[in-house]
């Protein structure tokens, strides 16, 4: 039986209440950390766990905590990134609405570790009902002495604030999120200085994803070494995967890292396979930003090895034949899906969500959307394919934040693996623009 760190109690009736959560062993990590450990010891456990940021970047969380500057007399902040907006990703939404106290408990032990007395949970504004659930949970934790002044008589004070966003994908980028939290437009900041030195209100700040923080109670209760023993290699612990698209059982699944992609996709415990009567065409493994994979590179790597759900195995082969873990947004396409249409759809998303600060992204995402629109609608030329690759290359690496890269990668990879399908749209516009028309060549290859 696979270890469940985040979802073990998620289906217990009433788990959203303090009482039931507490009965299931909730808040034991706060007691243990605050009563028996120093803040440095908590940071040490996070480091030992090897847990990597679950928002998409995969940077080791303990190391990030270690960078936090600690000048005398300056407040430090922990900000939880709950701006989940990456297409294909809905795990944090699921976790927060189902078991809000897990995040609250994680916020308390993490804030204690960092010496923060005021911490924020920045939730995308569309999830207003989740904000209300979190605020209720915070109130319960406060009444029970786990938040507020002098927590459990330790002398440690913590106030938790839930902040609502206003609808902007870019605020998932940590410095844009901080700008937004200061009441400004979500324009990412130039780095350095990094948030660890100058973050919220120019004070040292750590920004972590919901799932990352929600792992901390388990790490405290069982130790960082126990966490690191789960998973494979540098992909330690478990990961929430948001599974969507043409599968039998869409939903959020907690897996031990290292699980085979084949098992995740096809076993009844997880996705349950492709919907009946259809077959696999492509996979976006980690949210819309990551490179798309064609059928033959999904369960096996280019070298013929089993592909695993781990940071390393998913990126095996680099961008030529691999992809990325990203946020764990696992979008499955069967043979009825049109890759050109989906690529156009994603390009429109990035154009819409570009903050407009950097010219390559502001202009380039618009150009790419326009070119993809004309290919999809039967007005493209063969030259357009190279033009897309060229524009994508000129955006990549030339912007303040990674949104530009995120816009470029899906397009570059779709052309790399599905060029024939783009050519078919251009060479056979009449067929390609029929309602429901899909290129059938590539999937048979």
């Amino acid at each position: 039986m696979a270890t469940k760190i985040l979802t073990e109690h998620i289906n217990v009736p009433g788990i959203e209440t303090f009482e039931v959560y507490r009965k299931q062993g909730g808040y034991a990590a706060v007691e243990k950390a605050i009563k028996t450990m120093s803040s440095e010891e908590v940071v040490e456990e996070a480091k030992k766990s090897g847990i990597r940021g679950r928002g998409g970047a995969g940077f080791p969380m303990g190391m990030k905590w270690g960078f936090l500057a600690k000048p005398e007399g300056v407040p430090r902040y922990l900000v939880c990134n709950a701006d989940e907006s990456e297409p294909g990703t809905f795990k944090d939404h699921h976790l927060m609405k189902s078991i809000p106290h897990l995040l609250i408990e994680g916020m308390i032990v993490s804030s204690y570790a960092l010496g923060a007395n005021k911490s924020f949970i920045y939730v995308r504004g569309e999830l207003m009902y989740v904000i209300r659930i979190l605020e209720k949970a915070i109130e319960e934790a406060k009444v029970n002495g786990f938040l507020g002044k002098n927590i459990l008589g330790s002398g440690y004070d913590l106030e938790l604030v839930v902040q609502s966003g206003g609808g902007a994908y870019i605020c998932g980028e940590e410095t844009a999120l901080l700008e937004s939290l200061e009441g400004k437009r979500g324009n990412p900041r130039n780095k350095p200085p990094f948030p660890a030195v100058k973050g919220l209100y120019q004070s040292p700040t750590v920004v972590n994803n919901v799932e990352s923080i929600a792992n901390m109670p388990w790490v405290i209760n069982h130790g960082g070494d126990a966490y690191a023993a789960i998973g494979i290699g540098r992909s330690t612990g478990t990961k929430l995967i948001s599974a969507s698209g043409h599968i039998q059982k869409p939903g959020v699944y907690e897996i031990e890292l290292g699980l085979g992609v084949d098992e995740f996709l096809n076993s009844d415990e997880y996705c349950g396979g492709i919907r009946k009567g259809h077959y696999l065409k492509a996979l976006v493994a980690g949210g819309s930003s990551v490179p798309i994979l064609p059928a033959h590179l999904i369960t096996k790597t280019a070298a013929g090895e089993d592909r695993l759900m781990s940071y390393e195995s998913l990126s095996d082969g680099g961008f030529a034949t691999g992809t990325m873990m990203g946020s764990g947004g696992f979008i499955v396409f069967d043979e009825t899906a049109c890759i050109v249409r989906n690529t156009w759809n994603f390009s429109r998303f990035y154009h819409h969500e570009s903050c407009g600060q950097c010219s390559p992204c502001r202009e380039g995402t618009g150009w790419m959307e326009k070119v993809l629109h004309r290919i999809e609608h039967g007005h493209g030329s063969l030259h357009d394919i190279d033009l897309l690759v060229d524009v994508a290359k000129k955006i990549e690496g030339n912007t303040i934040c990674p949104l530009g890269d995120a816009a470029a990668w899906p397009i570059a990879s779709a052309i790399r693996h599905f060029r024939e399908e783009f050519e078919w749209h251009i060479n056979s516009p009449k067929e390609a623009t029929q309602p429901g028309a899909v290129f059938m060549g590539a999937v048979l290859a």
Partner: protein
Amino acid sequence: MTETPNPVAFTPERLAKVKEVITRYPEGRQKSALLPVLHIAQEQWGWVSSEVMDYVAEILSIEPVEVYEVASFYTMYHLDPVGKHVIEYCRTGPCCLMGGEEIYDYLKQKLGIQAGETTADGLFTIKEVECLAACGWGPVFQIREQFYMNLTRERVDEIIEELSK
């Protein structure tokens, strides 16, 4: 459609809420309350007019332009009057894979309006939005805080009928 009354003022309950929100941030950082306060304003008036933005600026002791630039950056704030129910329809890839485009066409046809338009009776406005983080339950749209998921034509009929009462 809701017209902004003159003079603009929060109800006593909402004003109390706004004041509480402002206390959440460190001294002098009341501008942090801007996004939440704009949500409260939209809850009261249905949309955010320039008069409302000026009022919010005054409450937070910031310049009106600081409110305008924020309200126009974030997609959730309606800068024009809207219908009683704003249907925020997800148009992003994963929902489309689940038949989102077909259901969207059906919805537009049923209401006789396009994105950005409001029905003649002022009941419904359609707004296209990007991914709502509910991809496993697509197609999805949202009306205020409520998510409507796994949409089908029949489900759309039911929802519209229910909200038209």
